């Protein structure tokens, strides 16, 4: 992939910013011993709410969900900031955001207990961040600037 200097800079910054956000969300949950996704899951609405409620209803499953969520966020965050295993991190991030969106889609007639900090109709920041990750997937930067370059190489010829 051949980028201009500014194109590359914009993509790299987008990657780092989204990574930063994931990392912080994950760490905040990790250090709070009482954090659990239960409230969020129970507040789920729309067609997949049954699935999310069932995750919350089983204490065993809930622990697994909490663990995967916290470490998923942290690893995706590190992956994006450092550019390590960037593609899988991008996909992982999209999957997490997809779950968040589908559990709480801001559709007409759906009201949530957890108040949202902005005004959304169908599109919210989760969805936008998910599409941001899609852009990063299609326009990768990890092998140009990131640890992936050291691990996998640039994957291209010496002359561009």
């Amino acid at each position, binding site marked *: 992939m051949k980028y201009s200097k500014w194109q590359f800079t914009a993509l790299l910054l987008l990657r780092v910013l989204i990574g930063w956000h994931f990392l912080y969300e994950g760490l905040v949950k990790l250090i709070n011993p009482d954090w659990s996704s239960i409230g969020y899951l129970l507040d789920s609405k729309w067609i997949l709410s049954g699935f999310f409620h069932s995750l919350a209803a089983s204490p065993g499953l809930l622990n697994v969900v909490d663990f995967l969520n916290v470490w998923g966020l942290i690893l995706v965050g590190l992956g994006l900031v450092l550019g390590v295993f960037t593609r899988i991190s991008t996909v992982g991030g999209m999957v997490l955001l997809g779950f968040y969106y589908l559990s709480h889609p801001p559709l007409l007639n759906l009201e949530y207990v957890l108040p949202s900090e902005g005004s959304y109709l169908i599109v919210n920041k989760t969805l936008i961040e998910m599409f941001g990750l899609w852009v990063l997937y299609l326009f990768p930067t990890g092998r140009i600037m*990131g640890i992936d370059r050291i691990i996998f190489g640039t994957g291209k010829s010496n002359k561009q």
Partner: protein
Amino acid sequence: MTMEDNKQGLLGRMDRRNMLKGLATVPFLGAFAIGWWRKRRKDHYLQHSLLKELGMDASAPYIPPSPSSDKTIRLGIIGYGGRGAHLVRGAGFADPELIQAWKEAALIDSDDKRYEDFLAQEDLNVELNGVCDVYDIRAERGLLASGNVAREGTDAGVTPKARRYRTYQELLEADDIDAVIIATPDHWHAQMTIDAAMAGKHVYVEKGMTRTLEETYPMVDAVKESGICFQLGHQGRQTESYLKAREAVEKGLLGNINLIEVCTNRNTPNGAWQYEIDEEAGPHNIDWKQFSGPYSDHPFSLERYFRWRCWWDYGTGLSGDLFTHEYDAINQILDLGIPYSAVSSGGIYHFKDGREVPDVWQVTCEYPARDLTLLYSASLASSRNRGKVLMGHDGHMELGNSLTVWPDRDSTRYAKMIEKGIIDPEKPLFNYIPGKKNVDAVSSATEAYFAGRGLLYTYRGGRRVDTTHLHIKEWLDCIRSGQQPSCNIDQGFQEAITAQMAIISYRENRKVYWDPDRQIII
């Protein structure tokens, strides 16, 4: 971009340029780490300073362990209506039809945990040996519940175990009954408790404790003289957050509490005591004479039988039914006792169905010795709930299933901390969510939000605990141990007198006072 590229990665040539490009974003992680560390340090400092200042921790309030329940207690139920059935369930016995309905509901909706929770409810080692109800259909349901030891549905062929007694006096004579649960309308509470006490039976009686002032005194005397174990049915005594609220008040988090606002808001016919009237019910299966007793000579009326709370002959209106719960919650936290004065007003503004008791009603209780006012207001025709709020000079407390203390921006105690930024008047000072360990003034507003709506801790561990069950359990524990239950006759006396002051004030349209020396209302 033209450069010396590392085409093969680790296998390829690793020069300085490739290394630098590979690690180029590491400084972002460094910046993140610095930001993280600084934020953590600040949070820790604020939290530490705050907790030190408040002296509060997030541990659950101490609840003494139960004594051994080796001894089986043999119960009788007087009044197996809606509340009576709930109390008996709290003791472990449910009508098979109800269990069947719960089982089926759980099959349709896996979130419906009523059946699962009831199965998980602790076995209290009790027997239900006597059922007394003036309405045949309810008595029969109670009998079936008594035999449902295994908590089964209608398919299990449950048969009655208890004996049915036509009158409560006969039930009280039974040798195989140690203790009675009284869940009749209010007009029978006092006499039944007196008779039970004289028969040496322990008593759990529903609130409001008494219907009239006069009957309150002999009831208290009978309980005290007999030495029976008495519990009044304010199950809010078991609410963990109220116990924690007491600790917060004792530590002075609110400063001088000068105004307490409590309320009731309902907006349904059922909430306004327009209960369903059974189609099968009639003079042939309701012992109207016994229901009325010496308290009313009104001819048979299905409406009065099923919706008795709407008439002064049988009930105590908002005062005894709902104000008492709010009062008892506050009395539990502050040991308020009987007010110096009470003035109340209200009217029948929405449910103009022939009732005598008001549907919008308020009472103001003054406690000059405590420098505070307790204000209760209720509407049965608006669900705009205002919660329980304790207001003090340094902060206020919102109380429900969870507890939140807010600092007052003009507080004296917190003035310096507000100035230093340790306390933000816009954020809660202290948050307590039963079952949770953290005290977090910063991030738990959301958690409080969920908990206040009963969403948060209901499913953790997959089990809910019913306060009614806990209140019955405490009573049974005290029967075995000889200790006093939390809502004993002294607490009951304060509840009854307060409720009666409010009723007298409303019905006589005057301000009333309590004379503590003569123990009378003037």
